[in-house]
């Protein structure tokens, strides 16, 4: 799916969060790196209409999220860094099933689909547990399941491993960068994770300053911030 930004700028209360960004991306795994406040999260939020451009135009798979946010959200799943805020329903199964609310499927069909996706990520045994009682890693896997059950074309993950330990970070990395058929935009500070992407985009001071082969982008990022 083609992600296309044409001279996109975003400003909040007079502060520029993204400054005149133009880029075309259609790789399967797109990594986004940069320092805090560089514009990474704003870029991610543009993709499903959580943030609207102040100027310029964005198209994701031919849909402008600023014009048709509902259609953009139907094709784009979003994973936040804090898994706690993504939990809507009290139990694991209910939370995953909630994503298919209003899909027209029968409850039994929804439950079967929810259990199947939990099984795929080895957390089916937690189906009837209180979602808030899970570990951070399990909560993030739950968030991924709740997104994937809707079969989005694109997944945007904004620092999904920020609150996780090494083992859980690697578990989430495997889940996201493994064999998912979906295109993924992965915003991260974890350079090991970023290195596994097909292309890296780097932001600095609200501008896109680098794009290309992950090893080259990471090298210049490290050199610039040594």
């Amino acid at each position, binding site marked *: 799916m083609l992600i296309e930004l044409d001279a996109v700028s975003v400003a909040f209360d007079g502060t520029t969060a993204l400054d005149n960004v133009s880029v075309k991306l259609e790789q399967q795994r797109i990594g986004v790196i940069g320092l805090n406040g560089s514009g990474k999260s704003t870029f991610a939020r543009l993709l*499903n209409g*959580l943030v609207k451009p102040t100027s310029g135009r964005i198209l994701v798979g031919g849909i402008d999220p600023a014009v048709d946010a*509902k259609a953009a*959200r*139907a094709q784009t*799943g*979003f994973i*936040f860094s*804090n898994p*706690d*805020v*993504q*939990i*809507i*329903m*009290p*139990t694991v199964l*209910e939370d995953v*099933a*909630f*994503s298919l609310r209003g899909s027209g499927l029968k409850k039994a069909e929804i439950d079967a689909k929810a259990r199947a996706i939990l099984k795929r990520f080895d957390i089916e045994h937690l189906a*009837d*547990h*209180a979602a*808030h*009682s*899970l570990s951070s890693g399990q909560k993030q896997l739950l968030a991924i399941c*709740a*997104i994937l059950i*809707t079969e989005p074309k694109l997944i945007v993950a904004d620092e999904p491993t920020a609150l996780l330990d090494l083992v859980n970070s690697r578990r989430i990395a495997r889940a996201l960068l493994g064999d998912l058929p979906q295109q993924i935009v992965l915003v991260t500070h974890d350079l090991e994770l970023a290195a596994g992407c097909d292309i890296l985009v780097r932001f600095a001071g609200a501008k896109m300053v680098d794009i290309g082969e992950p090893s080259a982008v990471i090298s210049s990022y490290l050199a610039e911030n040594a």
Partner: protein
Amino acid sequence: MTPLFGTNTSPLHRAAPGPKLLALIALIAAVTWAPLAGLALTAALYALAFKGIARFFQQLWNLKLLIALITIPQLFFGTDLITVLNATIRLTDAMLLATLFSLTTKTRDLIDSIESALHSKPLRPLTRLGLKPETVSLAFAMTMNAIPMIMKFLNQTKEAQAARGLKPTPIRMTIPLLVASLKYSDEFAEALTARGVEV
């Protein structure tokens, strides 16, 4: 970590939420007339739902502070002991029954029942007045969901204050708790939007 509902298949767990809620309301009204018999009946219902009486006493213990809050002012104002006991047992019983309902009902089943009820003929006029059944049921689910989060913030605030040598007091707790809750509500609203929830 234990399942919230587990594989419990007691008659109370299997009962439809709507009739169960109506039965609960009727039972709460009935215990007004016979408090002790009502408490015994509630204990029996807990035993039926959880194959034993332990859960009943666990919930009773959880209510100890509320029971104290109900009882002490009445004694302080000189109400006679029998009246105090009757009032305390009635209120405790009502809380135990409400807890029993939430322990034996899946939130999803409950919100489905709320939506069905609001779409039913007698309540349909409310939807014409602008009430959205989906919004009401979602608000209910979110309220249930916010409780563990607020408890988590409370514990984090207590720990942070204790770590800095402060004894947590209700006044010292209020502002950090409020800030954490507001931040959570902002982030939660964004996550809801991202999941395509329109309210």
